[in-house]
């Protein structure tokens, strides 16, 4: 470790002194490590297997997305946002498009809104599936990974049919949508709903009551709601700590106010609660999908937007509930075709900050569980 005094984000107890004068072990977890979900490097300070403190070293995947934005027009930058949180590309696109729409003072037509919600919720499910598979794999259960990937495939197929891309979809345009839905889109979504409902039970059957899973996740990586707010942690992690806050409900965007769904919360803020919250969120997403697919109105899919976009001088902050938490865009316009400044408020980046707090006093194996449960995507952490 470069500095033995790791900063403490909160007023934490000083790391417990090892009783015997045993050597502190400093371990470099990553950037190439099976459990760091990409290129995260965690410097662990261990007493035996107990974590005394840790420091995250990030930036290995830094591509300067914000700098690129300043050198592209508003439309040209749209595909780049997909590359941040690449497992939830649709959500990124939604946030960006809505932020620019706010600057332009236009609103996407209702039909576009509905299709946006459908695709975003499908993407939320896909993101949670990927999280579940990798998280379970980190804890040692191999099989859920393959189950979730099998089912995620169905979602990706819908994406592919809709816009031709599976991962970095670039599904939305500023002002609405580029493409009308293909023939049988509604049917595909309905099929997916009926296909996916029993699959969640299947995942839960493998894990929810598994004794080892319970032992590995209950009471691990506990974070209180107060700490979550202080550290700016959002998304399922915040909700698992008992704070009932979801931007979809608190400050509805798109047309989420038209849909009925619950915000699941946990009580203890441990890894198991976060697991349960995400499982229930998947079910709630299915619920939204059911309502959305039943109510798609007819009409145009694109609002009236100028070919060359020149938003008036001003600035806007718009945030949405991405699968990982609050995804915000702060866009400053100087009246030209290119944004003057685009700031992305990445949920993974801010959530990752809580890792140190959540891992102190736990064991090495718990660090893995906590990294998995934070559900970070390094593409978004580093941008």
């Amino acid at each position, binding site marked *: 470790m470069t500095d033995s005094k790791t*900063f403490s984000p909160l007023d934490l107890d000083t790391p417990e002194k090892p009783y015997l004068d045993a050597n502190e072990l400093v371990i470099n977890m990553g950037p190439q490590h099976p459990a760091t979900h990409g290129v995260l490097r965690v410097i662990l300070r261990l007493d035996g297997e107990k974590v005394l403190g840790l420091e995250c070293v990030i*930036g290995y995947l830094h591509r300067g997305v*914000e*700098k690129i934005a300043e050198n592209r027009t508003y439309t040209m930058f749209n595909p780049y946002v997909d590359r941040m949180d690449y497992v939830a590309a649709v959500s990124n696109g939604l946030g960006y498009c809505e932020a620019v729409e706010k600057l332009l003072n236009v609103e996407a037509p209702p039909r576009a809104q509905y299709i946006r919600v459908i695709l975003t919720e499908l993407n939320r499910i896909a993101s949670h599936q990927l999280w579940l598979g990798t998280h379970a794999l980190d804890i040692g259960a191999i099989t859920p990974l393959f189950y979730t990937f099998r089912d995620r495939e169905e979602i990706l197929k819908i994406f592919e049919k809709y816009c031709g891309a599976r991962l970095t979809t670039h599904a939305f345009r500023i002002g609405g949508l580029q493409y009308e839905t293909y023939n049988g889109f509604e049917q595909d979504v309905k099929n997916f709903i009926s296909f996916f409902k029993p699959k969640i039970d299947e995942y839960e059957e493998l894990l929810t009551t598994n004794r080892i899973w319970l032992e590995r996740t209950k009471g691990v990586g506990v974070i209180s709601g107060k700490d979550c707010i202080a550290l700016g942690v959002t998304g399922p992690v915040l909700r698992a700590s008992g704070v009932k806050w979801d931007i979809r409900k608190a400050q509805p965007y798109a047309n989420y106010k038209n849909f009925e769904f619950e915000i699941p919360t946990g009580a203890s803020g441990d890894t198991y609660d976060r697991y349960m919250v995400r499982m229930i969120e998947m079910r709630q997403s299915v619920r939204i999908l059911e309502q959305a697919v039943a109510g798609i109105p007819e009409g145009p899919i694109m609002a009236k937007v100028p070919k060359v976009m020149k938003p008036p001088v001003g600035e806007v*902050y718009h945030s949405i509930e991405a699968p990982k938490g609050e995804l915000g865009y702060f866009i400053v316009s100087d009246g030209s075709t290119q944004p003057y400044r685009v700031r992305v*408020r990445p949920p993974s980046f801010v959530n990752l900050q809580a890792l140190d707090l959540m891992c102190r006093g736990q064991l090495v194996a718990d660090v893995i569980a906590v990294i998995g449960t934070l559900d970070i995507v390094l593409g978004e952490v580093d941008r």
Partner: protein
Amino acid sequence: MVAKFKREYGSGIEPLTYVGQNYMVVDRSLIPEILQRLRDEEQFDYCVDLTAVHYPKREKQFDVVWVLYSFSRNERMRVKTQIADGESLSSSVSIWPTTNWLEREVFDMFGIKFDGHPDLKRILLPEGWKGYPLRKDYNILQQDSEWVQINLGIESGQ
């Protein structure tokens, strides 16, 4: 709330609204106090984001922006201040621990220093990198070719 602050601080604070979003431009000297009061008195307990914008032609080159949210009021608020190059701000880590990394990122990208930050160092770029990429005078193709040559062994710097 904003009116109250305006009354108390007078010209040091200027409340504004754009497309329905409130923000206030605050004088640099008032920043620590305003932020502290926003959290303690107005329940802006969640600092969503902290970032900066560079205006090279201005005398005070940087806008530093705090995006705040209050759970109890369900309300967002932005606090903005202007500082010149080389000036520093007092760190708000003690107010919102989340600004720890956010301040590091602003330092990393713009070179704005925060006094009292526990560990102000580069976060996304490697230690020892020269230049601050998100400043407007930093070209998009530009990079610290010396660093690249030394650390990565790439001669051309690309």
